[in-house]
């Protein structure tokens, strides 16, 4: 039965209080451990079509009569359009339509960053559209440019009011601490660079707008496009069957969707609008840079008594001020915490969510600081983390937490440090470092799924969600197969179309599995109940005695054993429909994910070269549905993290705000040759308070602690405290020099033995 509740809804660490209609979650969780299908490795349901090049991405939607749109972007970091003349562009061959500032949501007359979209052209070919862009006559009025985030904070240029948090008495606790360690940490701007760029193809059929788009949130695009164009939501159909990566950057429609939709309306033709790789690196959003001034006070025994941080998020011209302070508030037991966070509004490209936004940056600062504290106290870093183990989230109980077991599983990797260090010689120093992780990832309602069981005993799971490459189809099929008692190969998942299935969760915030999985299980259970009702009548037995096992309907006493298709065959040409919804999250509890990673590195102290040799990751995300897919998520997260730790950095011209790293040659992402040995382990215990499934999300947790684990391994190897991402050779040589000076001054004697 539907129930109305008032609850907190969390996405990417942002909470809002909302009314929610939920349905009760009446199913008991399955016992822990691998089951017949769930908890066992499964190859991807959609692996073959993707590998064979048959899967049709938005990039592959080529409609008859389709026009190509190109977007005119500001060459200034901050300027206003004074005059714009499209006549020379309209005179060019192939040009079919133009849009100026205000003609479509997203096209603006005040460009707040170099690359901001201001106008667009549709032409028969993309080349003609680009040529026409160059012919548009445009006069700019330059406005004041602020690129430095601290400059912006000083001038009061903020995206939101400063965010203050305090518990306990920070000042007093810090004053009373035996040891105080301080540090300033900086993280860089990082680009998502999904291999499929942001793009949409829009087409009007009757009064309905069909939007093919590469998105992480079909329903969010539907709502935003409807609102932006003044349409009823049901007059917007959003389709995304396969998409080529998002990592947080594809949660909303973007100007390209509105440009395609409006040009399609004006020309009466389908219009494609896709970003080039260079636009992707200039204007598609990014993980923002941060400056973090952090301090920790502790007792000699390692008990942390005070944590403080002042954070500046260089948000850019738009975007949100993510929770860089979150890890400091949540990861450790500490009664006295004070944070202050500024979101600087600067004339740089917009912040967009990027795989655990805020927590990736904040965990780098915090976990380096904690390791520096361990070095200062001469306490083992693992022991220090255990001594400050948090047993509640600011007083709120956890729905489940097995970080202690992650630590126990990490011991064997941590023990390797003695052998690893012993490989060091004068030039190459070896070391091992660790860092912990906390993050959200509990998902939530609303999310719905249907199951359709045909008379041949095959099952379709139908829900209008998207599979962004995380293995969603496979996990959903496993859950339905498990509940229905049928082999995995009898289940297909139909998704990716707002007109063909019920509302489904965003694929962001590690929420897909914990939001959708329980709804799919409920839908499968509903279908199963109906099948057993049929079988009970057909065989004149009590429904309670029946079950479905390996595709057969069987009774407890063995008198009934009949193939599923014989029961559902009674439906003839028809089908049986099951319906399921995601129940509420546990009231009054914090649903969080945890983990720890141990990194091994080699550092050339002469050149500053860092090689990551091995990363062991142990995460606690509740029940694991597909161990093979889970391992892939961990590997992918760590590899992306190695990118932002060692090589990736979006560079801007400090004078003009123009992006300098616009290609995949200058923006250096990891290749197969940069990948260390990666070991992925899981606690794999269902969260007994969370849904009928007990699973949390895994998309984001693995990317969170890697940078700090690598930095801490560098400290272990060399004594150098790196404070900046990426850990360039310049930064490493600076830190090495600082460590040498400190050693010469004798300033960093451990104090713990005093």
């Amino acid at each position: 039965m539907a129930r109305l509740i008032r609850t907190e809804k969390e996405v990417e660490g942002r909470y809002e209080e909302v009314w929610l209609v939920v349905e009760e979650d009446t199913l008991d969780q399955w016992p822990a451990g691998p089951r017949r299908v769930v908890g066992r490795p499964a190859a991807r349901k959609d692996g073959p079509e993707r590998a064979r090049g048959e899967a049709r991405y938005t990039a592959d939607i080529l409609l008859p009569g389709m026009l190509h749109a190109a977007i005119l972007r500001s060459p200034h970091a901050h300027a206003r359009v004074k005059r714009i003349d499209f006549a020379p562009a309209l005179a060019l061959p192939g040009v079919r339509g133009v849009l100026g500032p205000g003609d479509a949501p997203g096209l603006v007359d005040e460009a707040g960053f170099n690359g901001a979209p201001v106008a667009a052209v549709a032409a028969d070919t993309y080349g003609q559209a680009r040529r026409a862009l160059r012919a548009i006559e445009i006069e700019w009025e330059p406005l004041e440019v602020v690129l430095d985030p601290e400059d912006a904070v000083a001038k009061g240029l903020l995206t939101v009011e400063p965010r203050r948090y305090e518990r306990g008495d920070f000042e007093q606790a810090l004053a009373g601490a035996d040891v105080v360690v301080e540090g300033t940490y900086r993280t860089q701007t990082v680009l998502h660079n999904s291999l499929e760029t942001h793009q949409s193809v829009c087409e009007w059929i009757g009064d309905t707008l069909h939007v093919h788009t590469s998105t992480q949130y079909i329903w969010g695009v539907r709502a935003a496009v409807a609102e932006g164009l003044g349409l009823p939501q049901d007059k917007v159909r959003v389709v995304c069957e396969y998409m080529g990566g998002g990592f947080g950057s594809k949660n909303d429609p973007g100007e390209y969707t509105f440009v395609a939709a409006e040009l399609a309306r004006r020309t009466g033709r389908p219009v494609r609008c896709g970003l080039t790789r260079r636009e992707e690196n200039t204007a598609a959003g990014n993980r923002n840079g941060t400056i973090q001034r952090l301090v920790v006070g502790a007792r000699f025994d390692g008990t942390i008594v005070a944590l403080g941080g002042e954070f500046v998020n260089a948000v850019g011209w738009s975007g949100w001020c993510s929770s860089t302070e979150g890890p400091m508030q949540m990861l450790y037991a500490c009664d006295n915490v004070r944070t202050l966070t500024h979101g600087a509004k600067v004339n740089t490209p917009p912040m967009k969510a990027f795989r655990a936004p805020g927590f990736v940056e904040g965990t780098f600062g915090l976990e380096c600081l904690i390791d520096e504290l361990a070095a200062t106290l001469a306490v083992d870093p693992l022991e220090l983390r255990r001594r400050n183990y948090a047993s509640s989230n600011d007083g709120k109980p956890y729905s489940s937490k097995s970080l202690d077991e992650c630590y126990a599983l990490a011991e064997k990797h941590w023990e390797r440090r003695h052998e690893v260090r012993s490989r060091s010689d004068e030039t190459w120093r070896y070391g091992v470092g660790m860092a912990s992780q906390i993050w959200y990832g509990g998902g939530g309602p609303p999310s719905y799924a249907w199951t359709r069981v045909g008379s041949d005993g095959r099952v379709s799971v139908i829900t209008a969600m998207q599979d962004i490459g995380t293995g969603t189809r496979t996990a959903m099929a496993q859950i339905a197969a498990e509940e229905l008692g049928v082999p995995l190969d009898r289940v297909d998942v139909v998704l990716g179309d707002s007109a063909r299935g019920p509302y489904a969760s965003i694929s962001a915030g590690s929420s897909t599995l914990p939001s959708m999985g329980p709804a799919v299980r409920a839908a499968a259970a509903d279908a199963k109940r109906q099948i057993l009702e049929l079988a009970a009548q057909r065989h004149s037995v009590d429904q309670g005695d029946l079950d479905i096992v390996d595709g057969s309907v069987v009774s407890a006493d063995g008198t009934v054993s009949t193939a599923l298709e014989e029961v559902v065959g009674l439906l003839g040409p028809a089908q049986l429909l099951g319906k399921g919804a995601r129940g509420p999250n546990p009231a009054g509890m914090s649903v969080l994910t945890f983990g720890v990673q141990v990194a091994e590195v080699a550092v050339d102290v002469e050149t500053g070269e860092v090689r990551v040799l091995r990363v062991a990751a142990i995460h606690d995300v509740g029940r694991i549905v597909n161990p093979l897919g889970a391992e892939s998520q961990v590997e992918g997260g760590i590899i992306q993290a190695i990118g932002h730790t060692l090589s990736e950095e979006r560079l801007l011209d400090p004078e003009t705000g123009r992006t300098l790293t616009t290609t995949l040659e200058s923006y250096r992402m990891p290749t197969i040759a940069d990948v260390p040995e990666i070991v992925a382990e899981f606690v794999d215990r269902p969260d007994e308070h969370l849904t009928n499934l007990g699973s949390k999300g895994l998309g984001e947790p693995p990317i969170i602690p890697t940078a700090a684990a690598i930095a801490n391994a560098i400290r272990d190897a060399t004594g150098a405290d790196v404070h900046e991402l990426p850990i360039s050779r310049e930064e490493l040589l600076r830190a090495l020099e600082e460590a040498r000076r400190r050693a010469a001054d004798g300033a960093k004697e451990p104090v713990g033995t005093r």
Partner: protein
Amino acid sequence: MPEVRLVVNGAEHVVADAPVGMSLAQLLREELGLIGTKTACNEGHCGACTVQVDGVPVLSCITLAHTVEGEVTTIEGLREHPLVDAFVRADAVQCGFCTPGQIVSAAALVASNPEPTRREIRHRMAGNLCRCGTYPKIEEAILTWRD
């Protein structure tokens, strides 16, 4: 506009009106409908558009269609290659956008060296970027492609 004659996956194709400057990738995708070849950067940096010309991996996004003289093999011509199954088995496919290019590169590798070492795989596959980070699984797939 001069015509292009090409042998693709064993079949001859004639495109009568290919504009000069058209890339091989564009011709394959837009003229021949072979959409398995993806373009992700369109400037030769990522490897997603890899096809083979006479068995040699080539970046089709920066290859002019009119200059191609050899026989072209795309992912559509490699669909029955054991590497496809090996990639799926090893879970070397996440979003899958780079995967066809990876398989085309890998197929050229195993054709010339059926038992490559990890080191050789890393060397020969380093031109194919994967943002999802399937690299360990790609290595696994190529090591086990004949299993």
